[in-house]
C-alpha cells in the first residue's frame, strides 16, 4: 500500500442545505427530499462553475433508507440534479458517508478513471415518508430513530443485549476521561456547559444551523438569570448517561450536502478558489469501540496517522479542526488524539474559550452536531463545507481571523468508521 494520491485532488465546489425539520423549520417546511438534495447539489455545482452534465460520475450517499425511501439514489435523483447518463453508485458509511465519498472520488480521479465526481449525501432523521405519499411526511419517534440508526451497530450481540449509545458514547467516555486526568465530576459538568455555549454561539452565527439560539438566550427564555442554573436543571437538561447531560449531545436533523471533487489542474473557472484534498484515512471497528481506556480509540488513531501521512502534515500544522461531536466528550478525546489539543487539556481549552471561532484553537465553527444538527449521511459534507468556507474567508460573522491553510475533519460513521480528511489551501 502506498497510501498516496497519484494526482493532486481539489474540491472545486461545495453545497449544503439548511439543517432542521422538513415539517416545521423555516426554509425547509414542505420541501421534498428530492428538492432538498437538489438544493445542496445546485449550490456545489454552481460553486464549481459546472452543471450536472459536466461531471463524470455521481456518488450518492444515504444511510437511513427506512426514512428516506430512495434506494437507487443516484438514478432516482438524476433528473433532479441534471446528472442522468453518468456513472453512479449509492453508498453509505453512516455518519462518515459524504467524506468517505470524497475519499472514494479522490481515488477514482487520482487513478485517472474520472476527471470530476459529484458526491452528495441526504438524510432525514426527523421525518419519514407518510404512508405511501410521494410528498407528505410525518415525524419519526425518538425510539424509531434509534432502532433504525442502531441497525448500523452490532446486531448479533450489541444491540440485542442492551447496548446504549448514550452510555457507550457519552457517560462511560466521560468517566474514563475524569478518572484518567483526575478531573472532578463538577469540573466536567462546568466544562460541558462551556463547550455547549461555544457550539450554540457558532450555531447562532450560522443561518443554516438547526439551532440558532445561544444557550444563554435559551436559559433566559426559560426564566433563568444564570445560564449554568439552566444547565444543571434536571427538567431542562437531564442526565441521559450520567455524568453526561442532554445538551452535550447531537440534535437530529433533515439535511443534504454536496461537493465536487476534481483534478487540481482542472479546478478553475468556479465562483470561488478550490481547496486541495491532501489526504484521508479510514479505519473501522465494531463494539467495543475502546479498550480499558475509554479515551483511546484505536481506529481513530489509525485514521489520523494514515491521513496525516498521506497529506504530509504534522499536528502543529492544523489551523482548523472538526471532530465528530455527537458526544461532546468523545469529540474532545479525538481532538486530543489529533494533537490539536494537549492530552487532558481539551476541556480546559473549552472552558477558556479557546475553541471558539475567535479563539486560538477554533473547532466546529458551523455549530457541530449539537447546534448545526446531524443528518447522518449528509453531515460529514457539512463539516467539509464549513472548512472550505473558512479557508476561503467566506464564513461571515464566524470567520476565523487568520484564514486556515490546513483543516482537518474527523467523523465517526456509526459504528464505527473513523474517517479523517485533510484539506489544504492551493
Amino acid at each position: 500500500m502506498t497510501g498516496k494520491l497519484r494526482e493532486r485532488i481539489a474540491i472545486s465546489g461545495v453545497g449544503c442545505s439548511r439543517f432542521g425539520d422538513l415539517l416545521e423549520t423555516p426554509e425547509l417546511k414542505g420541501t421534498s427530499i428530492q428538492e432538498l438534495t437538489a438544493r445542496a447539489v445546485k449550490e456545489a455545482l454552481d460553486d464549481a462553475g459546472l452543471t450536472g452534465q459536466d461531471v463524470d460520475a455521481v456518488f450518492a450517499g444515504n444511510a437511513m433508507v427506512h426514512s428516506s425511501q430512495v434506494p437507487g439514489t443516484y438514478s432516482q435523483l438524476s433528473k433532479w440534479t441534471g446528472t442522468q447518463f453518468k456513472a453512479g453508485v449509492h453508498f453509505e458509511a453512516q455518519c462518515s458517508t459524504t467524506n468517505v465519498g470524497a475519499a472514494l472520488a479522490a481515488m477514482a480521479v487520482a487513478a485517472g478513471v474520472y476527471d470530476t465526481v459529484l458526491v452528495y449525501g441526504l438524510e432525514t432523521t426527523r421525518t419519514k415518508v407518510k404512508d405511501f405519499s410521494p410528498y407528505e411526511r410525518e415525524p419519526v419517534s425518538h425510539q424509531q430513530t434509534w432502532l433504525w440508526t442502531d441497525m448500523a451497530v452490532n446486531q448479533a450481540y450489541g444491540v440485542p443485549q442492551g447496548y446504549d449509545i448514550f452510555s457507550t458514547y457519552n457517560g462511560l467516555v466521560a468517566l474514563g476521561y475524569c478518572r484518567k486526568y483526575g478531573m472532578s465530576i463538577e469540573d466536567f459538568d462546568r466544562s460541558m456547559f462551556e463547550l455547549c455555549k461555544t457550539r450554540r454561539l457558532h450555531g447562532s452565527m450560522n443561518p443554516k444551523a438547526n439551532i440558532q439560539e445561544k444557550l444563554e438566550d435559551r436559559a433566559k427564555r426559560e426564566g433563568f438569570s444564570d445560564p449554568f442554573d439552566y444547565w444543571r436543571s434536571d427538567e431542562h437538561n437531564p442526565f441521559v448517561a450520567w455524568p453526561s447531560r442532554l445538551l452535550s449531545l447531537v440534535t437530529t436533523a433533515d439535511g443534504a450536502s454536496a461537493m465536487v471533487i476534481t483534478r487540481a489542474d482542472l479546478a478553475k473557472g468556479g465562483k470561488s478558489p478550490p481547496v486541495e484534498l491532501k489526504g484521508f484515512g479510514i479505519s473501522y471497528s465494531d463494539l467495543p469501540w475502546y479498550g480499558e481506556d475509554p479515551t483511546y480509540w484505536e481506529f481513530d488513531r489509525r485514521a489520523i496517522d494514515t491521513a496525516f501521512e498521506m497529506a504530509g502534515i504534522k499536528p502543529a500544522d492544523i489551523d482548523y479542526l472538526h471532530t465528530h461531536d455527537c458526544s461532546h466528550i468523545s469529540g474532545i478525546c479525538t481532538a486530543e488524539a489529533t494533537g490539536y489539543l494537549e492530552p487532558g487539556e481539551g476541556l480546559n481549552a473549552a472552558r477558556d474559550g479557546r475553541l471558539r471561532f475567535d479563539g486560538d484553537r477554533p473547532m466546529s465553527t458551523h455549530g457541530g452536531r449539537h447546534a448545526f444538527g446531524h443528518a447522518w449521511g449528509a453531515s460529514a459534507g457539512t463539516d467539509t463545507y464549513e472548512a472550505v468556507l473558512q479557508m476561503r474567508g467566506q464564513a461571515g460573522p464566524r470567520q476565523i481571523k487568520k484564514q486556515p491553510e490546513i483543516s482537518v475533519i474527523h467523523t465517526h460513521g456509526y459504528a464505527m468508521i473513523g474517517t479523517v480528511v485533510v484539506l489544504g489551501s492551493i
Partner: protein
Amino acid sequence: MSTVSEQPSAIRSYYEGLSEGVFRAITCKVCGGYTFPPTGCCETCGSWDVIPVELSGDATLLLASHNISPACHPRFEKIAPYVYGHIRLKEGPIVQAIILGVDPTPQALKALFECGPVPLKAETLQMDDLPVLAYRIVS
C-alpha cells in the same frame, strides 16, 4: 415437515448457552486471543483456526453509567433506565453490558465511581424474548 437439518450458528449457540448460564467465547490457536461474544474467526489476528471455550463469568467493573427511559430498544423498556458498565473480564476481553446491583441514579453512580473498580459476576437476565448477559456487583 422439513427434513433439512439446521446448520451450526455461533449466535444461536451463544444465546442457547446464555439461557443455561453458560458464557460462550472462542480462543485462537494462532495468537491465543479471545473473541467474546463468539464469531467464526479471531478478532485479533483474523485466523479461522479457533476453538470454543466457556468463560468463568468473573469480571471487574471499571466504569458505570446509565441511560434513559424509554429505552432505545423496546426489548429493554421494562427495565429502563438501567445501569450500563465498562467491564474487564477475568480472561482479558473488554465488554460493555447491563449492570445489576446498583441504582441508575446520579448519587449511586457517583458513589460507585468514587470507590473505583469492583468485582462482578456474570448472570443471565431473562427478557421477554431473549436471554441477555448481565453482570452483578459482588458485595
